[in-house]
């Protein structure tokens, strides 16, 4: 199946946001923030659910920083509410250059909401996750449809696959990043003290 382009994902996502917040889709632009459009916590839940069901994906339930803090341990990526240099480096890996400009100098954890709640951030996240959702069956080429839970099923031959969750993919990405950046020899013990 042809992968969805960023603008295709954006159009579909903008419709979801507009419907949930009861606003006109033209108000949703890549640079707007969901909270500026009026989204509160339950609206974000609703938008998450609708996005998951329309794109057949599972969005992570934590931000990449929170997942990374769980992997790296406390005080490595952020300390007392501020990103460390290691924390900034990790986030810059995930962030397009245009967004990175906002995070020079001292960066407080609360300021990251600006990035995490930006429409373009969600669109890229959805696009990235949708790559893991096949539209055609590997076995027979038939169309895949949503099945129970995290599963999809071929409507032709009945073959089932389990989808990857965003949380799991994020964790995997963080682990790989950790290995690449901080563990020069394969198999060396993981040690937070090795991180500059």
């Amino acid at each position, binding site marked *: 199946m042809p992968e969805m382009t960023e603008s295709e994902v954006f159009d579909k996502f903008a419709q979801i946001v507009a419907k949930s917040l009861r606003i006109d889709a033209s108000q949703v632009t890549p640079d707007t*923030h969901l*909270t*500026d459009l*009026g989204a*509160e*916590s*339950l609206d974000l*839940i*609703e938008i*998450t*659910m609708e996005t998951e069901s329309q794109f057949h994906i599972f969005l992570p*339930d*934590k*931000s990449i920083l*929170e997942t990374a803090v*769980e992997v790296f341990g*406390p005080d490595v990526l952020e300390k*007392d*509410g*501020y990103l460390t240099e290691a924390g900034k480096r990790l986030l810059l890996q995930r962030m397009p250059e245009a967004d990175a400009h906002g995070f020079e100098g001292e960066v*407080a*954890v*609360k300021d990251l*909401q*600006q990035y995490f709640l930006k429409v373009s951030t969600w669109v890229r996240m959805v696009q990235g996750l949708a790559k893991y959702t096949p539209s055609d069956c590997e076995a027979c080429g038939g169309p895949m449809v949503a099945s129970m839970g995290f599963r999809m099923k071929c409507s032709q031959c009945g073959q089932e696959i389990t989808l990857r969750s965003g949380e799991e993919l994020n964790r995997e990405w963080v682990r790989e990043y950790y290995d690449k950046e901080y563990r020069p020899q394969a198999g060396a013990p993981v040690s937070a003290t090795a991180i500059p």
Partner: protein
Amino acid sequence: MNAFGSMLYDSSVMRAYTPARYAVDVLPESARAVCCRVDGLPAEINSFADSILTAAERDYWQSMRGVDKRRHEWLLGRAAAKDAVRLLLEQYADLWLSPDQIEILPDAYGCPRVSGTGIRAGLQPVVSIAHSHGVAVGLAVLDPGALAGVDLEGTFRHRENYESIAFHPDERRILADIAPDLAEEWALRMWCAKEAVGKALGRGLSHGLLALRITHMDIAGGLLGVELRDAALDQFPELRGKLLTVYTVRESDFVFSAIIYQQGAVRMRPSRQEILDYLLQKMGELTQDWDYTEPVRPESLLFSELGFESLDAVVLCTAIQEHYQTPMPFAELLAEIGQQQRDLSIDELTTFVDTHLNGPAGSDHATRRLQ
């Protein structure tokens, strides 16, 4: 008195509400707290801001990016929190401050912190702020070590199916037991309770929605019990196995939730004797100003002997729940007693508390019964 001050006393604009309507007031040591709600800003927003904000707050407010809505809500939240702090210090510290003597700015995690020219060391309240659809609520607690969190959600918007992602299957089972006409409101109260706990812990719901688990519900009392799970426990290991009590209330089109958790307070599993001792001591305190001169004994009857009235019973029940940080179905107990037109002894009350803290089996009460 400035514009804000005069507005404060106009009850149509601002009124205080106590989510712990059973009374934060009766627990001077364990929960000195005030919760205030503000509905809407005056038309002259800039002069209102000038009248309540400190210089640093004004700088922060003016530098806020984003749309007006966000700035308005921020201001609304400040108004509610400052009022809560003012009333709190008036009530418990006899300190009369104007809003601009109280500074409330976010720390690096985004949690509001109180300082300001009127705030003395040692009297620095813990605050929490929430806003939704033009209404803001501020909770202020006097004990500096307390964890405090507040939230509100509008009930006017019917939402479908968010429960499937917001709640754990165990929580959905609790919801399934609620009468259908109450289920939607209580789902919202549960959500609100989680948000309040998330705020009290200082990181919002960053551990994921399911890391905060509703495990107890007392509909008559408006109480919800929340326990931490998974990653949230890694960060707060001291809260393992503890039940956090969240007060919830519905007012017009909103549900509110508030939690005040004294750090170091332990969810106790006391023996029956300890419960009895606590109740006798508490009864002694409550009745010391009354006419009743006899010592309070286990067989003393609350209503006919000690002269309790129903409000006194509510005060006592609230104190017990606060003391043990555990909601218990007192409303049902009191209703049952009312129906049967009988009295309640301290001994019987002890059994009730013991059963709800320790379960019917395993407590020494059960053992005693067998003897």
